[in-house]
């Protein structure tokens, strides 16, 4: 056991926890991390490396650890977590991970959620600087959010320090009492600010239940993403210790000096008894003295010639051997370090500590493009002056994150004051010592060495960003927290340029890995994207409908019935039956998803005259008109019918997909170009349910449904509508047809929709009324050559291309798209135009999207000239054969010609026809 008495401010020795690592059982204490508990049990080797299979252990004390990755199996399966950040819980099962993790195979049943928070000041980091910053802001009366990624506040404080004449941890506790008593302060531990975005927007991940292990309450979300919007952000995220790269620096038992000191004071773990400390910085002297005081034999090697007086005195008091101008150039050992190589000498040790100085944790400054400047005294990059107004406004780095490494300075900067300069022996910037570059590891997780950097430079890389991508240094889970600056430094050395001229790679979110489950929050499964259903959805389900997604809508696609031969109809059979039923009798469709826009105001007619290609202002109340909408470029964007309600009111029907965009389109023109028009627009899509009742027997059904209404062709002509009441229910009837058949659209408010639908179905029973879905609707409309905007058009198709010149007004002085129709390209006779295609083989259904080429027995060598493509293709019950619609170059002039459609390896001959294949004379319209 490596546990020593008298240390361990964070552990509770009265509580023993059992855990399993790599199949062996161990015990630890409450307050341990998995890493500290393993080291307490003398386990240094955590896994092997990803490519080289070299033994690896714990290097750092927290999330910056590049080495000790584990896979957690219990209580919650999760891959690739640093052992240093896993809080020990009873029953924890984990194993070492050689670089690559394994996703859980069981469903994740935990909850994840998110919370929005707004504040005046967000303080990231609850170390001395952050606590002072939070307290200062709170005392000013500001709304403060304080987040910190560790289990408890205090940051780098070990418990040995004194603040304002008191023990440091008492100061921390008192400060928290004051903050917690303030209702305008939110304080969150175990919360990592992982991304910093524009205008003070910070995302933070709170780990809420993992530390409770199996006792985690099911009703509490496991993790929560806090979306914090702060007027000011104080970055008090501390500093990461920087190793010095030496040959074979990756063995278990080699770690950062601060990490070993942390383990001693926080967890009471003395990670070695025979310790060599190799440093070029002052802080390691305190680590050496503390570890010696706890019972280790310590030799400190300082690469510098001068020593810090205070540090040397402390070391001398604790019996630490200090040697100056000494450099470690290698290590010995296989599973564990056994010697440090110093010149020709091999010093025996069971723990080698490296300390090359400190890197300010400036990630959150870098995320928002704040500048980082190289500080030669630190040997690191620290936040610089904001370059322009693009970044950095409202963002301050304080304490170690700002390069201020002494406690008094941290407290001063946290309080918003200037840190007093302190006496320090300058850090000697030492990225690496002499040795074999193929065994000098820069990024332990990626097994990337100095030799890899040399190869990158040799291949011509000059930018640290390129070197990073070429070597993969800094791309692992730790994102180069300890290796990034060293990689920049070694690159600069190899190139023979100052590191200032190279800079550092840009830090990007997330600071530490974030599970997708946390980012998804509650928006999973059914809640991922809203599904819109019509009020009749339960009826369709009961009727066995197969649904299709149309945008967010669920629409019945067809209603399969049992086959006489057993089993159930497939789509082709169901659609043929539904089509025949409609054209031979009567069918009913749920068309409630069609977009509906209520257009009101004295200028409503004038407005619609500009929006549609044809004249709407001349429409009489009680009448319906079909219209086409174009963009400024003259291309069709939507179509549908318009009902005139009264002189100042229209109801505009859009396509299902056009409901929202067309309302936006109308609003845009109304607000930005025609604000003088007195018009108001309101979506009423959800308020109306609409059921087309279609087929030669529809007059019988509607006549029975609304006995007070004269449904004769004279009294109720095509393209007219009226409001009536059926059993007290207000109902709108409109003679509109999207199939060429006699048809009525029955519209009713949603509350009465089901009753009306069921009544229509009941009344139609004697005529064999057949509910049909979108697939049959598509076939019926295609047989009549009615285009579907977005299927038969693609934003490059004009009304003229669709054969709808009749829907384009020649009288109106202007409307959206009009001027474009006379552009020379719009008059080109070789434009693609909508035509029908009949495969000579009447059983062959062309695939939609198939290309159309000139009639040929053999394709010419590529590029084969393309004439167009198939946009819609179906099997028609009315025609007793297959047919298709297609956009074909100069198609209207090719009617009667034969062309070829290559399908797979075959060349399918087709005949070009007009786009209206069923009832081109329109005799079925009035029944």
């Amino acid at each position: 056991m490596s546990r020593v008495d008298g240390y361990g401010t964070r552990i509770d020795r009265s509580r023993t926890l059992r855990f399993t690592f790599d199949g062996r059982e161990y015990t630890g204490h409450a307050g341990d991390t998995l890493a500290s508990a393993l080291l307490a049990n003398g386990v240094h080797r955590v896994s092997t490396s990803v490519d080289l299979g070299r033994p690896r252990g714990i290097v750092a004390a927290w999330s910056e650890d590049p080495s000790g990755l584990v896979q957690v199996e219990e209580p919650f399966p999760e891959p690739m977590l640093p052992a240093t950040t896993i809080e020990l819980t009873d029953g924890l099962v984990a194993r070492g991970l050689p670089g690559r993790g394994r996703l859980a195979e069981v469903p994740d049943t935990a909850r994840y959620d998110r919370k929005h928070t707004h504040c005046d000041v967000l303080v990231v980091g609850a170390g001395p600087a952050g606590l002072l910053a939070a307290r200062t802001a709170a005392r000013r009366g500001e709304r403060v959010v304080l987040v910190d990624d560790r289990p408890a506040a205090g940051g780098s404080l070990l418990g040995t320090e004194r603040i304002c004449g008191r023990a440091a941890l008492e100061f921390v506790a008192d400060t928290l009492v004051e903050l917690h008593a303030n209702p305008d302060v939110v304080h969150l531990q175990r919360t990592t600010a992982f991304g910093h975005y524009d205008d003070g927007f910070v995302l933070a991940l709170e780990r809420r239940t993992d530390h409770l292990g199996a006792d985690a309450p099911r009703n509490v979300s496991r993790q929560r993403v806090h979306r914090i919007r702060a007027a000011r952000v104080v970055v008090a995220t501390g500093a990461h210790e920087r190793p010095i790269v030496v040959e074979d620096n990756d063995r278990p038992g080699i770690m950062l000096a601060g990490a070993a000191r942390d383990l001693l004071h926080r967890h009471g773990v003395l990670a070695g008894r025979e310790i060599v400390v190799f440093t070029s910085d002052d802080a390691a002297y305190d680590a050496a003295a503390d570890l010696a005081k706890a019972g280790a034999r310590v030799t400190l090697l300082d690469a510098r010639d001068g020593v810090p007086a205070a540090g040397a005195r402390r070391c001398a008091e604790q019996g630490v051997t200090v040697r100056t101008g000494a450099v470690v150039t290698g290590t010995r050992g296989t599973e564990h370090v056994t010697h440090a190589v110093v010149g020709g000498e091999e010093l025996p040790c069971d723990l080698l500590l490296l300390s090359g100085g400190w890197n300010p944790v400036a990630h959150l400054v870098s995320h928002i493009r704040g500048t980082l400047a190289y500080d030669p005294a630190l040997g690191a990059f620290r936040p610089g002056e904001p370059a322009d107004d693009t970044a950095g406004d409202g963002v301050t780095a304080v304490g170690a994150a700002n390069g201020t490494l002494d406690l008094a300075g941290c407290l001063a900067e946290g309080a918003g004051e200037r840190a007093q300069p302190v006496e320090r022996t300058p850090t000697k910037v030492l990225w690496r010592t002499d040795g074999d570059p193929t065994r000098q590891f820069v990024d332990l997780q990626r097994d990337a060495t100095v030799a890899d950097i040399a190869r990158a430079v040799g291949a011509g890389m000059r930018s640290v960003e390129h070197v990073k991508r070429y070597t993969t240094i800094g791309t692992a889970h730790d994102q180069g927290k300890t290796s990034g600056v060293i990689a920049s430094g070694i690159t600069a050395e190899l190139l023979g340029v100052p590191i200032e001229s190279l800079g550092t790679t840009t830090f990007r979110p997330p600071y530490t890995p974030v599970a997708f489950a946390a980012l998804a929050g509650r928006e999973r499964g059914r809640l991922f994207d809203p599904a819109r259903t019509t009020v009749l959805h339960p009826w369709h389900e009961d009727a066995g409908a197969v649904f299709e997604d149309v945008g967010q809508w669920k629409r019945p696609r067809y209603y399969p019935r049992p086959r006489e031969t057993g089993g159930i109809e497939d789509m082709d059979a169901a659609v043929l039956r539904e089509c025949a039923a409609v054209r031979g009798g009567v069918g009913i469709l749920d068309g409630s998803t069609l977009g509906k826009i209520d257009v009101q105001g004295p200028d409503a007619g004038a407005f619609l005259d500009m929006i549609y290609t044809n004249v709407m202002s001349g429409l009489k109340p009680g009448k319906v008109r079909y219209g086409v909408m174009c963009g400024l470029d003259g291309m069709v964007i939507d179509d549908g019918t318009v009902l005139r309600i009264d002189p100042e009111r229209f109801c505009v029907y859009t396509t299902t997909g056009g409901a929202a965009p067309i309302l936006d389109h109308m609003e845009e023109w109304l607000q930005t170009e025609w604000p003088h028009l007195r018009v108001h627009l309101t979506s009423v899509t959800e308020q109306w349910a609409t059921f087309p009742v279609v087929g030669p027997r529809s007059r019988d059904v509607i006549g029975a449904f609304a006995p007070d209404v004269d449904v004769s062709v004279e009294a109720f002509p095509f393209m007219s509508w009226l409001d009536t009441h059926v059993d007290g229910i207000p109902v709108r009837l409109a003679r509109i047809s999207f199939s060429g058949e006699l048809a009525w659209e029955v519209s009713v408010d949603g509350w009465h929709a089901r009753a009306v639908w069921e009544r229509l179905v009941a009344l139609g029973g004697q005529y064999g009324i057949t509910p049909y879905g979108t697939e049959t609707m598509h076939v019926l409309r295609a047989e009549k050559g009615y285009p579907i905007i977005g299927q038969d058009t693609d934003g490059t198709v004009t009304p003229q291309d669709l054969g709808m010149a009749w829907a384009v007004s020649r009288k109106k002085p202007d409307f959206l798209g009009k001027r474009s129709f006379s552009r020379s390209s719009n008059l080109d006779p070789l434009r693609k135009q909508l035509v029908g295609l009949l495969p000579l083989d009447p059983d062959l259904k062309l695939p939609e999207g198939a290309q159309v080429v000139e009639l040929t027995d053999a394709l010419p060598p590529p590029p084969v000239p393309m004439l167009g493509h198939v946009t819609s293709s179906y099997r028609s019950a009315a025609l007793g054969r297959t047919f298709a619609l297609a956009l074909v170059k100069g198609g209207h002039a090719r009617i009667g010609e034969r062309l070829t459609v290559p399908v797979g390896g075959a060349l399918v001959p087709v005949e070009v026809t007009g786009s209206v294949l069923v009832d081109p004379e329109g005799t079925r319209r009035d029944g």
Partner: protein
Amino acid sequence: MQLIDCPWCGPREEVEFHYGGEAGVAYPADPAALSDEEWARFVFHRANPKGPLAERWSHSAGCRRWFTAVRDTATHRFRR
């Protein structure tokens, strides 16, 4: 995520907004009088400077009003 000042609702997150391109491009008084090229310039051509640009924005997930704002295309900052 940037904040954009809606003149009606105040500062809101950028995802609530819809971009409408360069502002101040007036619909021609008499489109029929324009040459094909003049018309194409109006329909398709928009300024794309590096620096301040007056743009149309719509608070599409809020009040649904269109407004004009000046934004620096290099820094994304809105002029206040």
